[in-house]
């Protein structure tokens, strides 16, 4: 199985690249081959502290897991990584003589929050995929010119700014496991998968509801400059809200065995 992957990402207008709090994996465009390929996007919540780093840890925990897409297994990988990273961060702050301020303490105690959307493609007698989703980052599967799957949200009204997210502080994950959305399906050579964070996903679902084929616009906007200009126009026309934007486009090669 060969998959061609391209990623497009942009910080919220007015923010710097360092302030971008979405995450994606793999981190580079390219052709990926193997019998099991894993991809993920995540959206760190702007009201949490250090959420971008937590989103990064979650996509890596998902993509480096082997033979499991279950949330408890992913958390078992991600939470120790978070604790190590946070300790490293606090040590660095102390060494730089930048002690944690009173206004940071509540956020650090409450922790970081993020969505996670992971997709695993399996090669075998029946080529299949499985997905794990929590929050409002979305996956769409397109075959030829037809939508095959949309998850975890397929109703534009269901997008809100207060989703239940994965917390880096386990005390805030009560009820998390009941909210995880698992899905599975099959793929065929030539299928395309789009993983995206909520601003773009909301637009995508609204377009679907209007009877459009939004993947056509995504294709027309391929290339970093075209993507930037296209999303800027969507923001200007208030078709998408000003937020970090991440899009991971996957295409399964036609010559797959």
């Amino acid at each position: 199985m060969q998959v061609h992957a391209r990623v497009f990402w942009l910080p919220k207008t007015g923010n710097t690249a360092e302030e971008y709090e979405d995450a994606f994996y793999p981190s580079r465009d390219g052709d990926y081959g193997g019998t099991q390929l894993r991809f993920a996007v995540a959206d760190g919540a702007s009201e949490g502290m250090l959420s971008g780093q937590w989103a990064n840890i979650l996509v890596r925990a998902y993509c480096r897991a082997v033979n499991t897409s279950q949330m408890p297994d992913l958390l078992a990988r991600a939470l120790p990584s978070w604790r190590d990273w946070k300790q490293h961060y606090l040590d660095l702050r102390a060494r730089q003589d930048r002690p944690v301020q009173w206004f940071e303490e509540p956020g650090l105690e409450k922790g970081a929050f993020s969505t996670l959307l992971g997709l695993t493609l399996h090669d075998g007698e029946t080529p299949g995929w499985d997905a794990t989703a929590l929050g409002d980052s979305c996956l769409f599967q397109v075959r030829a010119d037809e939508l095959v799957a949309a998850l975890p949200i397929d109703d534009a009204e269901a997008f809100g700014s207060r989703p239940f997210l994965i917390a880096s502080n386990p005390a805030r994950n009560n009820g998390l496991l009941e909210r995880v959305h698992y899905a599975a399906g099959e793929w065929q050579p030539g299928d395309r998968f789009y993983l995206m964070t909520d601003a773009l996903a909301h637009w995508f679902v609204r377009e679907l509801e209007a009877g459009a084929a939004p993947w056509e616009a995504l294709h027309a906007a391929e290339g970093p400059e075209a993507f930037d200009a296209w999303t800027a126009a969507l923001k200007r026309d208030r078709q998408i809200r000003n937020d970090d934007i991440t899009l991971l486009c996957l295409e399964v090669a036609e010559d797959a065995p």
Partner: protein
Amino acid sequence: MAYQAEISRSNPSCFLFLIDQSASMADPFGTGDAKKKKADGVADAINRLLQNLVIKCAKAEGVRDYYHVGVIGYGKDVGPAFSGPLAGKTLVPISEVAEMPARIEERTKKVDDGAGGLVDQTVKFPVWFDPVANGGTPMSQALMRATSVIKGWLTDHPDCFPPIIINISDGEATDGSPSALTDALKKLSSSDGGVLLFNLHLSSTDAAPIQFPAHEEGLADKHAKLLYAMSSPLPDYMRTIAAQEGFNVDEDARGFVFNADIVSVIQFLDIGTRPSNLR
């Protein structure tokens, strides 16, 4: 649609607090703790509002200037009421508020011990404003001053999320009825909607706390009713978030709170994704 403007560093919004500092604020507050004066209740309320607003804007690299903030006191005098390094300033970016409290006290609060009990935890409590109780209640003058400040802000920020004015008082104005001035203040607007005026009424009367009522029935006295009548309805946008935060808010709910916490108003503001499990 109104109240949709993005709150960002390039398009900040504004909070203006009006604080009753009259002699009547030396009276006891509510009936629960007879030793606590209304002036202490006011000081705690404004300090907690400022603290929560700062925390909402805090990121790891610093506090983002999503808001500019002012505090106007009214009692013996009417004017800027910050204590400490910000004394005399009318509107300051929230990052300066974060960096320049008059002092940081340590207080204890009860927190969940994770096993069904409560334990004391020491928390930092920044103070920008000290209790004052002196003179009359020139609320009308304060509203005139607020109108002038907000007019200036709107000239410079015509497309901002509408400024929010929070008036904290026991409601007994001594310089005439504030109603007409209130209407003039609420008629000011940005391109995104009218200025919002919310009121926190601290009363000596023995009546149950009320948050965001939709009618004046059940309010304790004419002062509470006056402040209720002055208060803006919660915009749909805030009402939706308030409901998501667990508040029981009717369609006609107003930005009025009686002898209760108004800090929750800060959580009705949306400056990005706020997870539902962040409470």
